[in-house]
């Protein structure tokens, strides 16, 4: 099942105004399962021209992976990518993923159409 999510794209150098926001690109944040209050606040910010709120529900699905899975070191230098940040957007076995470090755990989000292939690749490794 895909996730409910929104992207906030900021025009003025601000941020997404949410502790749950994942900085996935410069001036772009992803909020998974956004709260109504946040949506309302960001809608007002968009109306004020501060940025754009885009519903991307359905784009990302979670993929389970063990933190010591060989697939992680086979895909990317994660220690390097996550040294100064908690989320990185990258290609993992040719699938676009977001790797999120949360409370010491590693979580993967993959674009929905790639989920089947990525899971199959992880199972092979």
């Amino acid at each position, binding site marked *: 099942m895909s996730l409910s999510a929104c992207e906030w794209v900021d*025009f003025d150098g601000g941020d997404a105004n949410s502790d749950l926001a994942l900085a996935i690109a410069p001036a772009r944040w992803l909020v998974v399962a956004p709260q109504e209050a946040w949506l309302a606040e960001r809608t007002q910010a968009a109306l004020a021209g501060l940025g754009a709120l885009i519903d991307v529900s*359905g784009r990302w699905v979670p993929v389970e992976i063990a933190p010591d899975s060989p697939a992680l070191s*086979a*895909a990317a230098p994660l220690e390097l990518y996550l040294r100064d940040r908690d989320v990185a957007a990258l290609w993992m076995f*040719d699938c676009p993923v977001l790797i999120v470090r949360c409370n010491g755990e590693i979580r993967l989000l993959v674009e929905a*159409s790639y989920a089947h*292939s990525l899971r199959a690749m992880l199972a092979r490794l």
Partner: protein
Amino acid sequence: MSAKLRTGRRITGETFAFYFDGQRYCAQRGDTAASALAAAGVRAFGRSIKYRRLRGLLALGPEEPNALLTVGEPPACLPNVPAPVVRVTPGMRLYSQNRWPSLRVDAGSLLRLGAGFWGAGFYYKTFMWPSWKFYEGLIRRLAGLGAAPAESKLPQSKVLHLDADVIIAGAGAAGLRAALDAARSGQRVILCEREPVIGGELSFETASIDGVAALHWVQRASEELGHLGARIMTDTAVISARGNVVIAHKQPAGLPGADTLLRLYAPMLVNAMGAVERPIAFIDNDLPGIMLAGAAERLISDYGVCVGKRIVLFGNHDRLYRTAIRLRQGGVNVKAIIDTRALTASASRAILLAAGVECLQAYTIVRAEGGGAVRAVQIAPIKKATAVRRVDCDSVLVSGGWSPAVRAAAPSDWHSVCGAAAGELALAAIAGASDDDGEPQLEAYWRSPCATADEKNQFVDMQNDVTVADLRQALAEGFCDIEHVKRYTTLGIGTEQGATGGMLGAAIVAELSGSALAAIGTSRARGPYQPVPMGVLSGSRVGAGLRPERRTALHEEHAKAGAVLELMAGWMRPRYYQGNGADAFAAGIVEAARVRKQGGICDGSTLGKLEIAGADAPAFLDRLYLNSASAIETGRARYAALLREDGIVLDDGLLLRQAADRFTATTSSSHGAHVLSHLEFYRDTEWRGRRIAISDVTECWSVLIVAGPASRTALTAVLGRAWNEPLLNLRHMAFVERTWSAAAGVGAKLRLLRASFSGELAYELHCHPDIACPLWQALVAAGLAPFGLEALDILRVEKGYLTGAELNGLTTPMDAGLGAMLKAGADGLTRNSVGRALLGREGYLAADRPILVGLRAADGKSQFLGGAQVTTTTTATQSLGYITSSVFSPALQEWIGLALIARNCSAAGNELIARDPLRGGNTRVRIVPPAHLDPEGQRIKA
């Protein structure tokens, strides 16, 4: 087979048997094929590629040009494995290459009789009559190194990504010193060494470092690095470096099977890969038994192998004497040292003279003698080459100096180069050693003097049988640049990429052309630094892992319905449904006919969808698209096209306006990422700082396309009462958004767009993927049968609509019939957008520029296929264009097509010939308007 146990740094006392060319030999654990066979007295390891001369070991690393073996039995054998690299295992079967029927008796060696014909570039001048094909089979059998395996049983190799502060390539003296310096300063270090043990040439070095013997220093360095957290990776060769990334290949035992491809990241990359020893050219310098001096030293120190009983050393530096002393200490009889220099102050020389070893200054080896192996050399003073004297020997150790090992990367990719790789050859300078050889006092010497007629036997590049005569011929024929010499003579190609012969060849080219060596330079070596199995480079991209398959949310529905799914532009898409026909052709016709007669449903989820939002979005899209986006009303859509900067059509699709500052742009399925990149480029450069957000929402919207006369009825039945009004009143290219839920499901947003790619009354339902399946099921239950891409193609060709077959990266909007988009707006002004400025180029307006037309068979029944070229007659050689698409139309009961034809021949009614020699025959065709069916568009407006 020797029963006496050898001792050496890399071998143990455990023995076992292995096989070479069917004969049984004995090896010790740790032996390579080279050391085990050399210990058994084997001199010849194979035959050369062109002249099929017997060849032995020259070097003791992957740069070995001659001793390439095939490991294992066909069909899953491994060819071209360097004998010094592969570690022998019990029962291993090894075979020499380039010989038939055997190494000793080779029919191909008769080629030497015609050696005068096989000079450089002979294949450009021969084998022409009666034709190349006449000789091709024989040449292919004779050509190449080794035979490719018919299958592979190798397991998939691993891939590993690691990062550090410093990556050092090479764990010899310089590499270890650099690693210690870095690790002691607190940096994270990865040290890569291609050999199974670290230390490099310190394995036979007798000097002291930091007050301890060299090998003891290596041991201490290794322990300290371990304590400091450095990572030492043996059997790991750096094969390439670029930017801050090093690619390394770990291959235990020197044989594919447990390989790992490593991508190593660090801000600092250090090249400590040392230097590669090079030979000197003299007549018949390729005989078995003639090898590089360093190789011989390593064979003794690491494997306990003496390469001969009566050895001659030949070279141009002081290290020859130190080597001779070490060889004598190892029990080798050194008969003579031939030094090309006139003077030397080497203390080692004095020791050798006192011991009775003949040490000749300003002498050279003119020629080697022998058949299957060297048995003597002819030497002479350099200034009097005719005063030849014969010296019996069974081994010649040659050293013409060293070439820094810098080929793994461009110079700019290494942050630091140290040791021999930087041209520093004195151990004292590299590692603070004492009692070492000191500077070798090398004086350049490349080849012995000889008559021009004998230059064909002075070998420069042994792997490719390139001689001095070949270099002279190349220069005489005008190939003066070293890159041209390389390609014409094959100097420096193959597995060793000029490691041993490259510098030698360049120097001889300089001599023959009267130029300075610096002006000639060396040819560019191609990566990887040493041969790597193709399977290792592919990593996990093999078999099912070759590429991901994208699936829509409706994938399982298609599978259940019996769809034949094919990979198209990365997506698994239904080409047709099996119940409708035996193959795509038959099923496509059935499905297309059903859509026209009743209706059908198709999965359009793969269409790219980009959401563009922000106050500046309308003006931005006006600049990117040919059409005016800002003129689109909210709730309406427009067919739009965008151009590249050069005026060629990049893609087409729909622009939907959701609000004053919000649009969705659809793209073709294969162009989503490309169009996104195109828009982002302009947003971030030409219109930087504007309020424009672009998001890829392709995954967020499933798209169900319902088309045909019954589509409205089916939608009314499924969507519910709330949708009655929009279904009744929705105009073409308008859309509404409401909520819809399946019977027991949660509601989700649904966008209903009236648009058609089939030419029928049609709607696109854009919905959240979670409700795509229940919506699809409901519409199928309501009487809409699924149709696939085959049918969709028929429907759109019948209407003259465009796909990538027509928008193929070469067509302008005028070519594709989109000229209406270029007209002035209501204000009379022609808009400016990306790509328009170049549309007025002369070439785009030429009379023979292609334009889109429709085609029918002139007889109303013959077949013609996409790709066929169109001409005026059956014998004309000038093509007027080609057929982009062709289908059998169930509506018209004949073959129809679209084509791009020269404008000056494109008048409707013209008859031309569709030429298709590869698939059979010529078909007379007639030009018609592209819209074959319902050109007024009445069915869309139903």
